């Protein structure tokens, strides 16, 4: 029976050594490059015609733009417009990575905690820097809940700080766990199909349904990541 975890194995495709640092192109790196290329192709070639009445492809490209712009406007407001390029890139990158990972024989790099954790840390550090840039030292009042007696504050401030520090962890674990669990589940059901013979039709049907479900999860997790980024941005810009 195929090992359901084997699909997450990192394999070196091209050996690259930069002054003692192992910078080899792995399957994860290759799929990141492919993700960037496919997002760029999707948007650039979609908007190539710049038709007033968009065709199907152009309307998909416009739809994804408007979707993220709407999220940013609803959750952050007009001040969030500045950060649109970053948030849009984040959404498209994660969404396309999840989708590409669903292709047969593909590698899902969002199923690696280090990838999602770095993405979450970029958001976390970026948002913290923005908070300090907008409010200066006043940003620290974010950790002091208003209307609380000062005795309780001794307890509340550490709790707020821990809650703030837990953001990148919950953000990264959520994406990682969803992608990993989905892919393992699909693999486990797939490995039952052939050994069961004619009865294998049952796990096969389940797997077909799971592919549809995973498509939903691929979008939903990219969406959740983006929404939470917007909410954190909102906290940093408006302080609650």
């Amino acid at each position: 029976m195929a090992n359901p975890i084997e699909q997450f194995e990192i394999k070196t495709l091209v050996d690259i050594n930069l002054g003692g640092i192992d910078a080899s192109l792995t399957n994860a790196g290759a799929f990141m490059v492919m993700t960037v290329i496919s997002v760029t192709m999707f948007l650039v070639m979609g908007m190539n015609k710049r038709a007033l009445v968009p065709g199907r492809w152009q309307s998909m490209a416009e739809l994804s733009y408007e979707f993220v712009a709407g999220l940013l406007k609803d959750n952050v407001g007009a001040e969030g417009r500045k950060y649109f390029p970053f948030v849009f890139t984040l959404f498209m990158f994660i969404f396309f990575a999840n989708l590409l990972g669903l292709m047969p024989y593909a590698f899902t790099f969002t199923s690696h905690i280090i990838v999602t954790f770095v993405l979450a840390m970029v958001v976390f550090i970026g948002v913290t820097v923005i908070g300090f840039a907008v409010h200066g030292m006043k940003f620290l009042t974010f950790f002091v809940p208003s209307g609380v007696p000062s005795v309780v504050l001794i307890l509340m401030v550490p709790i707020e700080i821990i809650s703030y520090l837990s953001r990148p962890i919950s953000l990264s674990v959520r994406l990682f766990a969803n992608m990993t669990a989905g892919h393992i589940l699909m693999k486990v059901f797939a490995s039952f199909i052939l050994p069961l013979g004619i009865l294998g039709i049952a796990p096969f049907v389940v797997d077909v349904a799971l592919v549809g479900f995973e498509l939903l999860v691929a979008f939903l997790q990219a969406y959740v990541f983006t929404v939470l980024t917007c909410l954190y941005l909102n906290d940093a810009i408006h302080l609650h």
Partner: protein
Amino acid sequence: MPDDKDQSSHDDFDARLAKARHARHGPAGQEPVSESSKAGVSQAFRIGIDLISALLVGTFIGWFLDDWLGTKPWFLLIFLLLGGAAGMLNVYRTAMRMVEEVEEEIHAVDKKAPKSAQKEPDTADLDPKQPEK
């Protein structure tokens, strides 16, 4: 003649549109509920991770402080509790955000409802016209 044909096909379209609208607006209140119950599992998952991640951060800070200052169990104990409390705070905030989202959804449905009620007599008018012609 072609004009007449055009007219009839137009009427046909109107009838189909009216039917489609009826089909859509009939079970108006139920649609969003079934959608949100589908997302229930992922919401539960979201809350669970919110709880655990803060606990992990608290435990890690306590463990690090103990290791650094050599006060073996004390900071770990304190920050374990603080981490748990922070997890609860996370859960509370996420839950309140979810409640807000559901309330917004209900508001959106309420706002849509009078509109569809206004349109319904319109479509009802169209329906009896159809057999006459």
